[in-house]
């Protein structure tokens, strides 16, 4: 089974985001970047699918700059076989990025293309479905379980208030949701081996930008909490406020 996993380098969710001087970008100083957490589920699933099939290879791919090599090597350290860096700047909306990825995927042999369901930086949730559309492939997003039997894929999707089961024929696109698996830690040997695994670089140019950033804003400061009392005596008042003011009950 040949699997392509598309990944993205994103700021660690623990990083404190500071707006840049132009008000349209973030200050990258002091930000730690990581492999997008949803992509970790995708990489893990790819490794499991390959291990289950007993043959094949896992290729991780990203669109980005030189610095994205570190992200690719994280996936290689987990166990992916090779990496492809599409050198170019991703677009702010999904389509430009999806076009670059789809063009590169088209030229390769694959049975499944895996993604994380979203990147935690821009939270667009667009690219997996767009790549599937551009490649005319079936696509299951927000997937929490996958079974592949021969050519038939059964995927369990998380939907509002429940789950749904979908089936499709390979090749296809799967976008991973949290809960799909528990991503493995890279082993120390894996980290050392990652440097020696093939990492192909292809100049693809910047993705077409269809959105203009006008302004970035911090979320409004949260107002201080209110202490309604202490101990069991405070419970009725707390319940009343949760019901009437916060409308949480």
């Amino acid at each position, binding site marked *: 089974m040949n699997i392509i996993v598309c990944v993205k380098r994103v700021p660690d969710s*623990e990083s404190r985001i500071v707006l840049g001087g132009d008000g349209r970008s973030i200050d990258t100083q002091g930000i*730690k970047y990581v492999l997008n957490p949803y992509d970790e589920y995708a990489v893990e699933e790819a490794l499991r699918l390959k291990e289950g099939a007993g043959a094949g290879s896992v290729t991780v791919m990203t669109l980005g700059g030189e610095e994205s090599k*570190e992200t690719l*090597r*994280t996936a290689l*350290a987990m166990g992916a076989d090779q990496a492809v860096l599409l050198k170019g700047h991703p677009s702010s909306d999904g389509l430009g990025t999806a076009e670059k990825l789809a063009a590169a995927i088209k030229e390769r042999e694959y049975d499944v293309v895996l993604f994380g369901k979203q990147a935690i930086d821009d939270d667009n949730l667009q690219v997996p479905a767009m790549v599937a559309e551009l490649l005319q492939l079936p696509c299951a997003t927000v997937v929490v379980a996958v079974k592949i039997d021969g050519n038939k894929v059964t995927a369990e999707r998380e939907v509002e208030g429940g789950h749904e089961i979908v089936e499709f024929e390979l090749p296809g696109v799967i976008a991973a949701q949290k809960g799909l698996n528990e991503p493995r*830690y*890279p*082993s*120390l*040997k894996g*980290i*050392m081996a*990652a*440097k020696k695994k093939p990492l192909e670089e292809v100049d693809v140019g910047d993705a077409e930008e269809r959105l203009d950033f006008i302004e970035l804003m911090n979320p409004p400061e949260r107002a201080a909490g209110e202490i309604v009392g202490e101990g069991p005596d405070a419970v009725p008042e707390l319940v009343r406020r949760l019901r009437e003011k916060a409308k949480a009950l």
Partner: protein
Amino acid sequence: MASFAGVDYYDTDSLLSEEERAVRDTIRAWVDERLLPVISRCYAEHRFPSELIPQMAEFGVFGANMPEKYGCAELNNVAYGLIMQELERGDSGIRSFASVQSSLVMYPILEFGSEGQRMHWLPKLAKAEVVGCYGLTEPDYGSDPGGLTTRAVKDGNEWVISGTKMWITNGSIADIAIIWAKTGALDDPGSIRGFVVETDRDGYVAKDQEGKLSLLASDTSEISLQEVRVPSENLLPGSSGLTSPLMCLNQARYGIAWGAVGAAMACYEEALSYAKNRVQFDRVIAGYQIQQIRLVEMLTEITKAQLLAIQLGRLKDRGELRHTQVSMAKRNNVNVACEVAREARRLLGANGILLEYQSMRHMANLESVYTYEGTHDIHGLIVGEEITGISALR
């Protein structure tokens, strides 16, 4: 639990390679996700979390800086140090386990063992299928190990070993012990040799050390050897004199110099976060001069200790490290960690005495770390002898 973002005031990250950072971040995440959630309970129950051993082995923590052909990850010494740093950020007891397995059990087999012994033991120790302990210290010979009274007497094709070893980390859970014994006269430290002793042999008894107030999530034992017979091939052929066990300690001390930085970082981070949230007299205590200075002192000492550790590792990787430099780093960094832990505990006020917070656990642990693998004072005298040319001990 929020993941640890690191303490790095001087951008020491830029002194590390991508692989070194990846190794550190992997162990760091594991400590956050797997060790920290269970460590307080283990500490309260006086229990070493042995259920974590297989995961550490799967990473390749044990003997991580040793050759691949023995099943090890062959990392450089800086990466190895960073592993120790992160483990001790969790708890000194966990780092102690890893230090003993790697530096005090695998290292002597690598350094003084035959190729047969290496091929037999090292892969099993790396996978932690076999757990080891290290028997040098005795009830009456701590800082002066050359006086040890454990004897090994040749009897045909066997060695017969008798004696008592004390303060043995992993002593009760170990499958093998590296035992140092005199094969000649008791006043001849040159006759000290190392032996691999399987702990299921007749006459080997390990007894848990009762009443500890430090390293509670670690196994510490007294070992008694009563005419324990081992085949002659259990002798480590390359071991010779007191220098051999001291070489092992030097490896372990190297890891401790890094580990202490981890414990100090944990305490500093806890103190900083507490100070920014704890309100007294209508404002957070981080706004008061006394706490700011306290935090700055902590951070300054941690930063110096980090730089010391990194340069120590670079020297070791270049093969230029002197054991006296390891002594200086062990002495300084553990002392820094002790002070930082104590100050953090104080900053936390009454909460600081609770197990729910980390600082007092580290503070108590670090008193052992200050003492073992060469006490603070002895390391001072090792450096003192080098710079003056005069031994203060003899």
